[in-house]
């Protein structure tokens, strides 16, 4: 289906609002599940937005901004998954695979912005030197709006302006290509999870990962909450154990110290 000019502007506005939130990481409106839902509302097809949101959220679960890295943009992924599914009639998994170049484009833009912000930081140093708190606030907040406005333009161009090329491109696909994207879409979460493992997994936490894996493989679970409860229980058991060990270590250390003192005394 076609995206009208008004809908294109509406999608741009969704991009603007979600980008305001993405820069603060406050209410998680930049997550695909929300972006897709809002985009679906704008396009008058909330059901499509909900379906695309679920698929793209799972794929971008591990794509975090932890440690100041910029991942492929979850915002644009959620947005373009809906846009591509809506304009081409493909299913959500295939649309997710096709949305990837757009997420990469936004990622590159994000890296460029974080680099350009270095100049703002030096401007802020000047404000600090002059003890000008008002100017400091202005220079901190202005980029917030400028960057969000950039995402308005980006989303508008990618959705409204590019819809015909995308449609024509996808229309030439044989069946195996769209199925191939679906296969890839099902494997992609592994990358996100592997990246989570980089920060959480060490040799001494690996056994817990195995417990979670076996639980989810062999039990019928509606979601991961029961696993999280087991995780909390395990963490608590470990805490009690460690505290006890530290206590023993501390007593041992202090008693040897005392003995030493006695010897010196004698």
């Amino acid at each position: 289906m076609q995206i009208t000019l008004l809908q294109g502007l509406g999608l741009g506005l969704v991009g603007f609002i979600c980008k305001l939130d993405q820069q603060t990481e406050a209410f998680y409106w930049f997550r695909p599940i929300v972006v897709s839902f809002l985009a679906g509302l704008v396009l008058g097809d909330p059901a499509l937005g909900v379906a695309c949101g679920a698929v793209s959220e799972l794929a971008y679960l591990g794509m975090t901004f932890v440690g100041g890295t910029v991942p492929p943009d979850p915002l644009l992924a959620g947005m373009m998954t809906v846009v591509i599914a809506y304009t081409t009639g493909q299913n959500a998994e295939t649309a997710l695979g096709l949305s990837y170049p757009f997420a990469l484009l936004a990622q590159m833009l994000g890296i460029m912005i974080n680099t350009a912000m270095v100049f703002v930081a030096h401007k802020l140093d000047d404000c600090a030197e002059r003890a000008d708190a008002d100017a400091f606030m202005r220079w901190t907040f202005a980029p917030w709006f400028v960057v969000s406005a950039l995402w308005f333009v980006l989303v508008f161009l990618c959705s409204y302006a590019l819809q015909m090329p995308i449609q024509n491109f996808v229309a030439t696909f044989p069946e195996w290509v769209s199925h191939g994207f679906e296969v890839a879409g099902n494997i992609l979460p592994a990358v996100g999870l592997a990246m989570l493992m980089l920060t959480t997994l060490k040799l001494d936490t690996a056994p817990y990962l195995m417990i979670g894996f076996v639980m989810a493989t062999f039990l019928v679970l509606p979601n991961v909450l029961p696993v999280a409860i087991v995780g909390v229980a395990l963490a608590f058991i470990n805490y009690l154990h460690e505290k006890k060990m530290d206590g023993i270590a501390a007593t041992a250390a202090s008693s040897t110290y005392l003995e030493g003192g006695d010897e010196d005394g004698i």
Partner: protein
Amino acid sequence: MASKERTKLSAKDIRDLGLWSIFLQISFSFERMQAAGFTAGMLPAFRKMVNDDPDELRRFMKYNMEFVNTEPHAGTFLQGLVLSMEESGTDQPVIEGMRNGLFGPLAGIGDSIFWFTVLPIVAGICCSLSQQGSILGPILFILLYLGVGFLRIPFGQLGYTMGTRAMEGMQEVTKYLTRGAAILGATVLGALIPSYVAINFSDACVFGLGEGTTVQSVFDALLPNILPLAVTFGIYWLIKEKHVNAVYIILAIICFGLAMSFIGWM
């Protein structure tokens, strides 16, 4: 140090700090990371505290414009801590040491809790609702994250009331909390692999294994979900040991999906 005339902050000022701290990550730059938002969030309260004294403002803005990067909720906690130490007239080197020494460990705790535990659980629950076609999925997600976002307020209050006392107990608590969060994170992560990654050979892929035996059935007999587990660990190894850029891995997965679809194995 110059004037130590301090206006006492009210409970409302500390509550407002929680709201201002929402902007922790705006003007994010690769050079200073969150320094701009970190400083700006504390400015309204600090201006009141020092009655806009230019020397104090200059000093405060300058040392806070140094590099800082932490998890947002931990950032609010740290802002509360810095303000309470400023209010009690602690020497700047002590505050600076605390600020620069704590943001890393606090980020470790915050990231384990909010990125690696809260997000996968909330997203897991909401996506399972979405997959059933329920509009409740995204709505529940938005509501829950409204709560997570405003959690900054108690975090700011906690940092402010703990003040310098926090320094002493912090080391020990940090150790146990980091460990507990890592265990919880690893357990949930283990469950996410079979829940979100799907790799299945098609029924047409038999390799002459005999009547009714497919390649997939061989893997399933060995251990269900062994392929998702192996692939996730394989990607983890590639990123960690071989330093392969995640972007190349994702592109490789897309090519793999297309190839497998073309030859009909998946």
